């Protein structure tokens, strides 16, 4: 089990021009093994920048990002990524998209299809193996995206607003599916959203972020997701007074941090 850590990270864009934007300002956080960390905040608070750092798509201007104690030098299959718009490959059908990571490792076709079929069952897409990507609904595409990341068997899943483009009903189904997968695979998850309800429901650790410059203003330990994975119904979890109180508290945090940022402008 491995820990992903960010220490005193600053990320500035456009360092050589006059218009420097500080996307992340002295951010530190830790993703413990098996935890479900949710980053919540308005757009422009550096959530995606944070994910890009963890994935290895981006190097910090200063500070350090480590995985298992070693600095993150670039992307690796130890850290799987699920993208907001799927980023699936339209020239491959569903099963070949899911098996893509195994193909890169040179796993023979029969074996990788067998593995991919197992993962497709986990995300509820059995029978869709031969479908073309463009024949799938938005929700199904995101399931393929999750399955693709899982097939490479990463230690941590980095999810960049994977439910942002989905309709409300599909979105709730996907929340439950992702929590289910998290509980079954025992992987660590870093999950980005700007949905307050979603964040409070899913997180085992909730990071509230503020924009301009991107900062973590609060870190809250929560257990509503656990309640769901231990058998409670999603509706029951969300109807508890405790859930509602927490949600309102988090909403206050998000709005006050945004007003603070707007006042600074």
């Amino acid at each position, binding site marked *: 089990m491995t820990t992903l850590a960010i220490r005193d990270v600053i990320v500035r864009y456009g360092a050589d021009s006059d218009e420097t934007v500080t996307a992340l300002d002295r951010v530190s956080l830790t993703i413990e093994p098996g935890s479900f960390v949710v980053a919540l905040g308005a757009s422009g608070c550096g959530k995606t920048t944070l994910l890009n750092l963890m994935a290895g798509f981006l190097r910090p201007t200063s500070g350090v990002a480590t995985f298992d104690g070693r600095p993150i030098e670039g992307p690796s299959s130890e850290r*799987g990524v699920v993208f907001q718009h799927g980023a*699936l490959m339209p020239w491959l059908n569903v099963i070949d998209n899911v098996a893509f990571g195994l193909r890169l490792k040179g796993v023979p076709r029969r074996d990788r299809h067998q593995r991919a079929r197992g993962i497709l069952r986990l995300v509820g897409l059995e029978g869709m193996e031969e479908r*073309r990507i463009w024949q799938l609904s938005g929700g199904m595409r995101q399931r393929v995206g999750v399955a693709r990341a899982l097939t490479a068997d990463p230690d941590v899943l980095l999810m960049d607003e994977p439910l942002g483009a989905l309709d409300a009903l599909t979105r709730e189904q996907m929340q439950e599916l992702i929590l289910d997968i998290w509980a079954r695979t025992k992987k660590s998850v870093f999950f980005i959203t700007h949905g307050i309800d979603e964040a409070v429901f899913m997180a085992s650790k909730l990071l509230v972020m503020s924009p301009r410059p991107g900062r973590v203003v609060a870190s809250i330990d929560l257990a509503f997701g656990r309640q769901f994975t231990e058998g409670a119904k999603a509706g029951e979890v969300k109807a508890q007074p405790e859930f509602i109180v927490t949600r309102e508290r988090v909403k206050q945090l998000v709005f006050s941090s945004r007003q603070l940022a707007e006042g600074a402008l």
Partner: protein
Amino acid sequence: MSESRTLQSPWAGSLRVLSLGPRRARGRFTYVGKVSVATCVAMILLWWIAAWLEVAPAMFLPSPLAVAAKFVAVWRDGFQDATLSQHLFASLGRVVAALAGAIVFGVILGFAMNLSETARGIVEPLLEFYRPIPPLAYLPLVIIWFGIGEFAKILVIFLGILPSVLIATNDGLKSISRDMVNAARSLGASRLQVVLLVLLPYALPSILTGTRIGLGTGWATLVAAELVAATQGLGFMIKGAADFLVTDVVILGILVIAAAAIVMELGLRLVQRTLAPWQGHQ
């Protein structure tokens, strides 16, 4: 009733033709197809009537029948020491060789321009320098440098096709989303794997489109390439016939070039639909 007819009429039909995906019209002949056939028939009829009325002397405007008779004659007995099929295959060989070369170099250079700033710096000015120059203008130079052999002819056609393939490849690659490349990298793809398993299939529809556009230029350059020191070829045949005012052979040559180009274009469209069915579905 009238509304549903508007939906069926020209726009709906031509949009369907534009989409190269598998969503083809079900009927054997689309509305656009029928109009196209009618246009061709009308053109031939018009030509026939003009020839029949002797708008111009038969020497300048032979009738469709005379051209058809000439087709049989040239097919059987030949024109200028070669039969029609020999002319056709000489030209076809040159165009196909030039096209193959242009695809190989166009794709390699298009990728190089995207992967390396140095390569872009080298290729771009050279390409933009020669691209607007008509092949007839640099033909003499090619002959001075490379002689009057087959290589020089193929080179001229190749130079005509290359920009289309190169620019299409380059533009196609530019539109790839960073996420798609990052997705592959986060699954452990090496640089080479990104190029071969992500960029190449992604660019394939663009490459094929560039090839189709280039093919048109290729046929257009053919006649220029065969102007000098050819002994066979459709361009050579047309040029020879024009010199002796054998108008029916000139028209015959034009029609054969058009037919060959259309067959290759349709073949490429088929390839595009088969190899890149996702085009237009992203």
